[in-house]
Every structure is written in structure tokens, then in C-alpha cells.
């Protein structure tokens, strides 16, 4: 199980970096950036789940729920902003 | 009224799950919290009836789950292969169901099926605008969505069977001409 979790961390880490790069890249529109941020939070939730499996520590389990909710909330809020002000 | 009781029960279940253990105290507190929240908030102005026919719902969920897997495979394949086979388009799809709930569920399900994403919902005319990733045949996309919608109507529509075929055929015809 240890190797499996380390592999998952490596894969998710690469995914997270890809999201961050899209977030800060100069050419992206606002819509691109918020999609990248939401994806980053999704990767974050997965990483927390893998951590919980690896360490058996249940401290971050509630954080996954909050992160998922906040990701959705942020996405919807920025979407409404884009509608009014343009991407 | 039944919908509010359902929401109260759901809230109580989530409360118990969040606390981790199913003890008597947790369950009672959950029910109290659920009831308090449901009573404190005003009921929906247009009560929406949601029916869950078990067998049809299972079929819908099974098809839906399979399509989600297929969708992810399609996108993953596109990412991995070097040649860019993307041909996008936005397709107008008339909705036959009159129920808001079914339309919402179908729009949601479309967004998770292979290569399609609901962009705009025209509730007055009953049309759904879907962005498609690999657009080869417009009619094929419409047929796919119609199949999904039939399954959803069978599972969720409030009064036996979906609404009539009152989808505006004329406006769908207008959008065809480039």
C-alpha cells in the first residue's frame, strides 16, 4: 500500500502542477483560470484522501468536504462575475 | 410537504455522517437540526414533485455511469494521441418533457456524457444548447440526448410518462439553416 500511495501522490502532484501552470499562464482567460482553480481543488481533495489512506490519520477528512463545497461555490461565483463583466 | 420531509431526512443523514458514529444522540440531534432548518426556510414557491421509480432510476443511473466512463475515456484518448481530432460545435436540442426537474437532470447528465456540455438552457422554448467536442453528425447528437431524456422521463417524470411532444419544431428548423 505504501508504494501505491506514493505513486498516487506523484501522479496527483503532476496534475496539480499542470493546474497551477494553467492558472498563472499569461494567455489564459478568466474562465480558463477558474476552471484550473476548480481542478486544482479537485486534485487537492483526491490528495487528501490518499493521505488519509497512507497515514490512517483522520484529521483532514472533513477538509475534503469543505474543499469540495468551496470549489463549487467559487466556480459559480466567478461564473456570475464573468457574465456581468466579461472574461 | 413530502419534499420538505425528504430534505429534512437527508439533512439528518448528512449530520450523522459528519459526526462519524451512528449513536442515539447523533441521530436525535440530526433529526432536530433537519427539522429546524426545513421549518425555518420557506417552502418552494412552485413545489416540484420528484418521483423516483426504482427500476427505471436504476437503469438511468447505470446508463449514466457507463456514459461517464466512456466520456472520460474519450477525453483521455484525445489528450494522449498527438493528432488533434477535435471538431467542436454547438447543437440545439429540443426538449420534450414539460417538467423542470427532468430537464435539469437531463442537462446535468448531458454534461457528463461523452463529448457534450450543456451551455445554455432555453426554458421558454424548451431547447437545450449543447457544446459537442467531436461533432460528426448533428442528428446523431440529438438522438443520443433523446435516448437519455427518455430514460430520465421514465425514471423521474411526475405524472405517468413525460410531457407531450410540444417541442417547437419550427424554431428547431430555423436553427438548422446556416
Amino acid at each position, binding site marked *: 500500500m505504501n508504494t501505491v500511495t506514493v505513486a498516487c501522490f506523484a*501522479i496527483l502532484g503532476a*496534475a496539480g502542477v499542470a493546474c497551477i501552470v494553467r492558472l498563472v499562464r499569461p494567455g489564459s482567460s478568466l474562465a480558463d483560470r477558474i*476552471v484550473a482553480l476548480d481542478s486544482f481543488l479537485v*486534485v487537492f481533495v483526491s490528495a487528501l484522501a490518499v493521505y488519509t489512506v497512507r497515514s490512517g490519520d483522520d484529521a483532514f477528512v472533513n477538509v475534503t468536504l469543505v474543499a469540495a463545497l468551496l470549489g463549487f461555490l467559487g466556480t459559480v461565483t466567478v*461564473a456570475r462575475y464573468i457574465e456581468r463583466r466579461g472574461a | 410537504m413530502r419534499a420538505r420531509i425528504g430534505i429534512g431526512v437527508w439533512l439528518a443523514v448528512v449530520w450523522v455522517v459528519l459526526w*462519524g458514529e451512528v449513536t442515539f444522540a447523533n441521530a436525535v440531534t440530526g433529526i432536530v437540526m433537519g427539522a429546524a432548518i426545513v421549518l425555518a426556510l420557506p417552502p418552494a414557491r412552485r413545489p416540484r414533485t420528484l418521483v423516483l421509480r426504482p427500476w427505471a432510476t436504476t437503469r438511468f443511473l447505470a446508463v449514466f455511469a457507463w456514459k461517464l466512463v466512456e466520456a472520460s475515456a474519450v477525453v483521455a484518448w484525445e*489528450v494522449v494521441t498527438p493528432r488533434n481530432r*477535435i471538431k467542436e460545435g454547438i447543437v*440545439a436540442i429540443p426538449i420534450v418533457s414539460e417538467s423542470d426537474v427532468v430537464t435539469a437532470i437531463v442537462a446535468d447528465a448531458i454534461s457528463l456524457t461523452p463529448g457534450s456540455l450543456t451551455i445554455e438552457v432555453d426554458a421558454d422554448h424548451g431547447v437545450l444548447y449543447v*457544446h459537442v467536442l467531436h461533432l460528426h453528425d448533428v442528428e446523431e447528437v440529438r438522438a443520443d440526448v433523446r435516448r437519455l431524456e427518455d430514460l430520465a422521463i421514465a425514471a423521474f417524470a411526475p405524472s405517468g410518462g413525460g410531457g407531450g411532444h410540444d417541442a417547437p419544431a419550427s424554431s428547431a428548423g430555423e436553427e438548422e439553416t446556416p
Partner: protein
Amino acid sequence: MSALDWVGGVLMIVGASLTLLGTIGLHRFPDVFARMHAATKPATLGTVLVLGGAAVAVADFSISALFVLVAALQFITAPVGAHMVGRAAYRAGTELSAQTAVDELAGSPADRRRRR
């Protein structure tokens, strides 16, 4: 590793890989709408698989129940979020990429109504 660990481990690896492919799609696809396809579908399925695998591999039932709850939540909210961003981007006039074949939304009653 017990049988449950194997199942959970496989689910997690597959889910993580799917998420990674989705995020790569964020870079490769030509325009905003295509990128949303890439971000939401594999990422949602990937997260559901990772959370499901974690729910299976973890020994504690309460944690598993919570992971299932988060997975269900993700399932329901991800397409809605993507739809809202897509709608907003279209209404804000984002250009569709050059590979677009058909655009039936432009000039339709819905389009005309919101441009007013």
C-alpha cells in the same frame, strides 16, 4: 496487502491517472469550452474513483461514509459548475476556436434574448 487494499489501491491509481490526463487536456485543447470538457469529465470520474478507492482501503467506516458523501457531492456539483462557466463565457462573447463546425446558438431566440 489484503484484498480490500488491492481493490482500493487500483481504484486510486486509476483515478489519479485519469485526473492527470484531464489536467493535461487543460493545456492541449484549443479553446475554453473544449478545456472545460477536459477538466470536468476525467477529473470528476477520477476523483470519484480515488475517493471510492480510499473509502474501500480505509479501515474506519465513518471515514468511508464521508468519502462517499464527498464523491456524491462532487458528482452533482461538477457538471453544474462547468455549465455555469460555459454559459458565462459564451455570454461574455468568448471566441470559439477555429475548429468549430456548427454554432446553432448564435442568432437563436435564446441568444437574441440575452443580448438585449
